[in-house]
């Protein structure tokens, strides 16, 4: 083939030549496959009729529970396997380091609606917990001169206990009858006599 011939047929490079050869080969095969595909419904129509026949449907109904059970079993086994695999993977991978290396935490946090988070929090309960943890009452007591002294607290508690003893003694001797609103509580907070 001369250079003029090559130029007229457009076969100037080996790659284009290979492409044309491929198209020339695959094109007819594709058209043949399309023709076969169009014939499939016609060909398989008798098979469809057989599959939808009553005996086969009955058999299929019996088989259905087995299929469902099989799928469930498969699902459970898959879950077990996946869980184990994921756990093993997570154990071997340092997720924290990965996140630190690949995630821009500042950008992530900047997108968080902190007001909404705070609105969902029970701040009163949180404050109570903090107070309970810090023993704030004790701190206030220590900073309050009136009740700061342990000795004063002891004297007052002993006075209260002595008051209760006297009240109970007087009741025992029948000098007075107890009234509901003046009932004496025991030091542990329980109802007294």
């Amino acid at each position, binding site marked *: 083939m001369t250079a003029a011939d090559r130029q007229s047929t457009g076969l100037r490079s080996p790659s284009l030549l290979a492409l044309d050869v491929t198209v020339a080969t695959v094109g007819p095969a594709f058209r043949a496959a399309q023709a076969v595909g169009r014939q499939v419904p016609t060909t398989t129509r008798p098979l469809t009729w057989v599959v939808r026949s009553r005996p086969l449907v009955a058999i299929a109904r019996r088989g259905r529970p087995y299929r469902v059970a099989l799928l469930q079993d498969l699902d459970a086994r898959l879950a077990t396997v996946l869980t184990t695999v994921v756990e093993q993977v997570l154990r071997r991978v340092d997720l924290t380091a990965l996140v630190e290396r690949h995630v821009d935490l500042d950008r992530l946090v900047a997108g968080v609606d902190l007001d909404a988070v705070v609105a969902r929090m029970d701040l009163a309960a949180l404050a*109570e917990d903090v107070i309970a943890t810090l023993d704030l009452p004790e701190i206030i007591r220590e900073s309050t001169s009136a009740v700061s002294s342990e000795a004063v607290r002891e004297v007052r508690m002993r006075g209260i206990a002595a008051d209760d003893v006297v*009240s109970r003694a007087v009741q025992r001797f029948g000098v007075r009858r107890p009234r509901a609103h003046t009932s004496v*509580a025991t030091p542990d907070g329980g109802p007294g006599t």
Partner: protein
Amino acid sequence: MIPAAASPVPREARPYQGRSAGLVTRAGAGVVDGLVALVLVVLGLVGVNGVRFVLRPRGFEVTSMPAVSVVGVFLATLALYLAAAWALGGRTYGCHLMGVRVVDHDGRRPGALRALARAVLYVVFPLGLLWCAAGRSRRSVQDLLLGTRVVYDWMPHAGHSSLGPGEAATGTRT
């Protein structure tokens, strides 16, 4: 009102706050107040003698008073001290030390006249206090006559008390 969790009152004493105080606590407060009045009288006598010494150093002699007069001055001082303390803050130093407060039937501190009458009654008839042990609502004779009560209140100031007027009046606070 201070939340219970942040109250400076110790946990073990909180159930008693607002309840009527008994004989021992009140007697203790009375003894302390008696000592305070005694100290005031002594300081007063020392002050008077000091002034006299400054004014007339020559021929200075310590003022000698008959025992009756000393007792009279002591009782008058005690009555004035009690009345002023109850009217101003609802508690004397003895009450403050024992953690009790005098309130009227509304749970507020007594007025000046009521405080003065209560103080005079206590000075004249201190045995009336004993009735708070035998009485039905831990009230002394003076309390019954004047409609007052003495309640446990460990809060340092009356304004900080979490005690409501109704609660203080009935003693139902637990």
